[in-house]
Structures are given as C-alpha cells and as structure tokens.
C-alpha cells in the first residue's frame, strides 16, 4: 500500500513535473496539443471534484439542521435556495433567456445573485475607510511615514489637491514610480524565487507535505 500512497504519487509528480516544465521550451504543435489535452483533463477532474464540494456542503448543513445548532435557519435557507435553483435550472436546461424573454433561472441570477454580489463588493468602500482610519493613526514612526505618504498621494491623485499644492502631483508620481515600484519588484523577485524553489522541491520529492504528512 505504501507504493500507492507514497511512491506512485511521487513518481507521477516527478514525471509530469519534468514533462510540463520542458513543455515551456517546446514550441512544436504536439507540445501545445498535449498541454490542451491535460488542461481538459483538469477541467473534467474539477467537474467531478465539484460533486465532492457540493456533497460536503449538503452534509455540513444537513447536520446543522438535524441537530438544530445555533443558526440552523440559515442552513435551511441555503438548502431551499440551492435545491430550488438546481430544480429550476434543470427544468429550463440552464437557459437564462428563451426567445428574448428572461426565464426564472435568469431572474434568479440577475435579480438575486448579481445584486447580492454587488452589495458585498460595495461594502469594500466602507471597510477601506475604516481600515485607513485605523492605520493612519500615527502611533509609531512607521505609521507616521505611512500617514505622510498617504496624504501626499491623496493630494496628488485628487484634482483639488493638485490645484492647492501643485507639486503634490510630481511627488506622488515619484513615490509611485520609484519607491513603490521598486519595493513591489523586490517582493515579486522574492516571490518568484520562492515559487520556483517550492516547485523544484515538489517535483523532486523534497516537499511531500501536500501528499498528507511528512516523513514516512
């Protein structure tokens, strides 16, 4: 069993890792075709995995309803909404419009899902304001630097600010193009090296924790 649990996955990882790393250097159509085929496999596996996810969701909320845990009403709403949407979607073959007329399935998406998503996204504006308030309190030297930089950048980005302090536009550009860009690039270099190192460790079996556990 150790072969199927450990050695076989490591072997598959090694072979596919090397093959697909090499694929980057091969422009031949056969190489592109192989990548396309494997991408389709991934989509198919993803489709099957979604069954796992939905099963998990149903199970968790069924348990909550059965045990009448606090907030079990939300689980009931989730069940009703999900089963209702699935039933309507299957009935209408997943069509959002028929002959230019919106179906019930389309209505659920356009008048329930989209506004709810929009509401969540809109809350971001208020969260940015509260987070900015908290971080701009100059409690330390670093926070003071952040506060000053933020004030300059805000002045430089708003037409009124640039009108009142004309030089703020130039300073803003300098902060963004020199200080900000250089730090971002430094972070990206570190991230890229880290990602390459992790990939090499996984391909060559040095990192095995993702298989579930450490050393055997």
């Amino acid at each position: 069993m150790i072969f199927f649990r450990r050695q076989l996955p490591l072997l598959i990882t090694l072979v596919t890792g090397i093959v697909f790393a090499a694929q980057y250097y091969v422009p031949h159509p056969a190489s592109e075709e192989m990548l396309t085929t494997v991408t389709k496999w991934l989509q198919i596996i993803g489709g099957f995995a979604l069954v796992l996810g939905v099963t998990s969701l149903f199970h968790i909320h069924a348990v909550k309803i059965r045990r009448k845990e606090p907030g079990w009403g939300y689980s009931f709403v989730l069940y009703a909404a999900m089963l209702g949407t699935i039933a309507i979607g299957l009935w209408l073959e997943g069509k959002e419009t028929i002959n230019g007329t919106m179906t019930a399935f389309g209505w659920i998406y356009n008048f329930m899902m989209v506004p709810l998503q929009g509401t969540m996204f809109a809350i971001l504006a208020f969260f940015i304001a509260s987070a900015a308030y908290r971080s701009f309190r100059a409690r330390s030297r670093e926070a003071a630097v952040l506060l000053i930089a933020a004030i300059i950048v805000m002045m430089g980005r708003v037409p009124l600010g640039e009108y009142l302090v004309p030089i703020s536009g130039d300073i803003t550009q300098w902060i963004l193009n020199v200080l900000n860009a250089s730090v971002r690039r430094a972070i990206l270099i570190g991230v890229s090296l880290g990602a390459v190192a992790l990939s090499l460790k996984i391909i060559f079996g040095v990192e095995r924790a993702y298989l579930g556990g450490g050393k055997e």
Partner: protein
Amino acid sequence: MNTVFDMTGWPRKLILVISLVIAWPACLWAAGVAAPREVRVFDTPNDGGGGLTVAWALEPGEGPATHYQILLAEAKDGAAVKQLAEFPANSHYAKEIKSPWWTRPVPKTYHQYDIKTGKGVELKDGTAYVVTLAMTNGEERAETQAAPATPGPNWINWNQANNLLLVLLFGSVLFASIQAAKKREIFLRRIAGLDAVDEAIGRATELGKPILYLTGAGDMSEPSTIAAAVILGRVAKRVAAYETDLMVPHRDPIVMAVCQEITKQSYLEAGKPDAFKEDSNFFITTDQFSYTAAVDGIMLRRKPAANFFMGSYFAESLLLTETGASTGAIQIAGTDSDHQLPFFVTTCDYTLIGEELYAASAYLSREPVQVGTLRGQDIGKGIILCVLGIGTILATSGILFGTEFQTLFLDFFRDVK
C-alpha cells in the same frame, strides 16, 4: 570673344563637375533598383511552424523613395503569386527583431521580414513555397529569382535557452544548499508572524474558541495555495496537540480534498487521530463574494480566536480581515498577492510578505532539507542583485559609448520568447 559667361572653357568643365557631384546620389537612387543581394529565405527558427523568414543585405542605393515588395507563391503553383507586403527600403531591419544574439539568423545590419500565418496568408507546414523579393522606385522594378523554403515546426525554442540555463543554475544552487544544510546548522532570521502561530493557537485554546484557517482563492496549481496547504499541515499538528477546534472553509473542492488528507495526517502524527473531524475542512462555494459573505458570517457567529489567511487573495482580502479584526481575533496573514499586501498589513496583527509565505514551512518544521532551500533562495537573490548592478552599469555604458558588446551579457538575462 571670351567673356565670363563663355561656357566653352574651364567654367563649363567646373559646372559640369559640380553638377555631377550634386546629382550623383540622386542618379544612384534613380538607378538603385537593382535586384536585392544575398537574399535568404528559410523556415523561421524556434517557432511552432507556419512561418518563413526572408533576409537580405542592404542595397547601397536604398532610401525612402525605394520600396521592397515580398511576393509569395506555392512551389507547385508558382504562377499564383501573392504580394504580401510593400514597405520603404529604410525599414524592416534585423536589429528591430527581438531575438537574442545566440539565435539571430542574420547580421543586425540586414533587412529581415517574417512571413507568418495570419491575415490573408496561410503557410502550411511541410508545403514548399517560393518567395520573391522586389525593389521598386516609381515605375522601375527589379526582382530576385524565386527562392524556395518550407515552413515547419521546431522542437526547441532556443530563444529561451537562457531561461533554461538559469533554472538549472538555480536548481543546482538549491540542491547544493540542501546538502550543505544537512551537514551544518543554518541560521534563520526571526519571522514574527510565524513565531505568533503558537501564541495564536494557545490563545484560542485558553479561550475555548475555534481557529479559522483560509487557503486563499487559488487552486492547487498555484504555488501559494500549495504553500498554504503545507503550512496548514504544521498548524493542524499543533492544533491537534492542543485539541482545539479547527475550521477550514474552501473555495476549491480539489484544495478541500487535499487539505482534508493533510489535516488527517497531522492529527495522526500528533497522536490524536480521534480528535480529527472530517468536517473541519468544508466547501462553501467557488464564487468570490458568496464565499466572502459566508466566511464573514462564520467569523461573526463563531467568533474564532485566531484567523489565518494564507495563499493568494483578491478584492475579498479586506472584507475578510476587517471583519476578523472587528471580532477581536488575532490575525496572521501570508500572501504573495502584492496588490493585497497593504490591506493585510493594515488589518492583521502579523503579515508574511511574499517569500515569507514560502519560507513558513521551513521555519515551522526546522528540517535541514527545508531550511537549506531558504539558503538557496538567498543565494539566488544575491545573484539577481549582482546581475542588476552589472546590467545597469553595462546598459548605461552602452548608451554612453555607443558600443554593443554589452548585449552579450544583457541578452542572457532578458525574457525573450
């Protein structure tokens, strides 16, 4: 009678000479429609097929008034000639094509034109074509003999040879560092965010509250998600030892399945297999804001004492962390999404910035093999720093002195596809 206007003597000769000197280049232009020389037509190197390259030497008489025409026909049907392009003779130089010095097919001073399958032309691999090059100037025209060539796909893109060499170099450094780390201990600088992991778990245990761990928005093919899953294993081991509740809501079912196995193994290693709950890893939805709303709801209802945000994030980062901060939980984030870092730094108690996310596994396990990779990464960064310095000096000197030998070095570190 001789006068100053007498045109029969030396003034006439002088005017003739001056006229000739002035008119010579114009005569050359007018007469510069000789057929292009040293014409080469060949399969475009380093491509996936469907491409031919035409290259030819500069003509002495070429200028803005003269034009080049590229004509293409199938070899078996030479009569159906199609004009592909016409352009001024002072354009389309080989130096304008982005290719490194080791794959440049002709000298930089040559003209070069790439024929590719696209608008109005389709080159079939394995089919022989003939290409004719013509030079025109008004009504005058001179063309070369049709040159045959067959397009075909290539097995290796040598333009990316530098990339391959750098990966091999970095890989060698990495594995050498791992070997070195096995022999002697390597110093690791303190990472406050990772030191706080134990503190966060301990606090949750004392308060009798659960721990919330998020693996980010990415799927299992993203290194940051793999790093988040690996760290989950280390965190779960300590959570198991303390017998604290762990909640790991997921956006990707495959990540969920992998994390379930990792968590189960961690509980086994901690000697607490009975404490493992299958439901600790659960799926919510793949939708970004529905997931965010659900996790925010969990934070507000269950009030976890510690929140971990590892992996890659998008606009939901602030929605999650600000809600977590409002519940008073200790928050530790780790991400390589540089655009979300300011939000995490602002709202979390500790943030693992960029590469620290990848270093976390080594830091928490302290295994020599893992720590060795960190040394390898540091050496890699040292090399990049040196290349940046040397490259800046060389590029600047190239501009100052108008020399080109610097490209021998600079091309090697360029991303050429």
